[in-house]
């Protein structure tokens, strides 16, 4: 029920400003973007899709920031592991 899937906006339907075609992993579906009327998505932007409606835009910079944080943790972890290994060899 909380099923929300990221999809990329391809195009708006010609006579229907509320409807956009999105792509989810090569699968296309028309969804309603009326809930984003205050700041409509452009083709190429990503949205969160839930039961045929776009609920929110996916902020790419925030996604990148989140991933960077995770990378950072991953690197720190890898560094620590490496340090552990080295100290063992002694």
């Amino acid at each position: 029920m909380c099923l929300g899937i990221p999809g990329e906006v391809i195009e708006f339907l010609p006579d229907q400003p509320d409807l956009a075609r999105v792509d989810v992993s090569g699968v296309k579906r028309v969804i309603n973007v009326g809930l984003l009327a205050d700041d409509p998505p452009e083709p190429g932007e990503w949205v969160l899709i839930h039961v045929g409606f776009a609920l929110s835009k996916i902020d790419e910079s925030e996604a990148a920031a989140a991933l960077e944080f995770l990378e950072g943790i991953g690197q720190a972890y890898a560094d620590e592991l490496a340090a552990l290994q080295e100290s063992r060899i002694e």
Partner: protein
Amino acid sequence: MTGRTAPDTSPGRRGGWVDEALREHEEHTRAAMSRPKTAAPEREQQVLDRIDKARRRRPKIREERITMSHGAGGKATRTLVEAMFLDAFRNPLLEPLEDSAQIHLNGSRVALTTDSYVVSPLFFPGGDIGDLAVNGTVNDLAVSGATPLYLSAGFILEEGFPVADLNRIVTSMQAAAMAAGVQVVTGDTKVVQRGKADGCYINTAGIGVVEHDVSLGVATAQPGDAVIVSGPIGDHGVTIMLARGELDIEADIVSDTAPMNGMIADLLGATTGVRALRDATRGGVATILNEVATAANVSVVVTEDKIPVRTEVRGASELLGIDPMYVACEGRLVAVVDGAEADKALAALRAHPLGEQAAIIGHIAEEPPGIVLLKTAFGGTRIVDLLVGDPLPRIC
């Protein structure tokens, strides 16, 4: 809402065995109370053991009416087959409940199978009901180790069904039969009134001869065996879902319907280490893995990121909230192979056009018996149980 309260009624048909389960729980709790206090993990294990026992009990049909679940290929189907059909017809040839029955006839080993095709829509990207009717039956014979030879074809046609459509279907069937090297040698035709049979239903039966010295069967799986799938899963089921047009989803996915007898012959010729072959249709790969685990009383451990799934199938499945492991294929097999022969088997499959993307997805282990475990792409582990319900009706 008004404030009236109805009498406490558990759904009537469930009364008896709920009380039974409660009694069991009470006895169990009383016994546990008299013992020294057990820690939570032990208590959880006791519950798991009790559940395991409940699952192994003789299947009983609890419904009064047939529901779509009974046709989904999952738990309800299995219960229906075991409690109704196996129970009524019981004999040694039926008991194994494999894709074909193996019959000794005048010195030859003959495989016999039957299937009905009720797919909706009749025509879809990648094929039609005619293709399914031939390939499905050919495959059921081939996975038993038989060389498919002859098919019967019974048609149930709806009054008003266009003759041109029937012609298309029959032309497909002949083309499929020729590609598979089989012949349709007998058949039947019935017509029912408008409103029944949804256009066209087809039933086929097939016979073949088991020429190899192999005795295939899921009950022979052993710890150390490899589990192989012959290609990307879920193509057919997702194609049908999208072809129904109800979901407004467009994708470039086509059904994977194909006759696998050529590929299987290559496989069986390349190695004697094949323990079992199964055609992954309704209920998908997950259903077969569970059948192996139950029949051989072993654990099947598969790794999520080794299972081939096309990107679009994954995308469509995520959109629909279904799991590709439960989605029907119509031209994919699952093979259980002696671990030492796994690479040979894989090479044989990959050498055939239908098996280009074959992959080893897991192995058989001893514990925990009867359970299918999935190592997620994320590194955790979870169970893959039999399908409950019917997410994708009338798939084949």
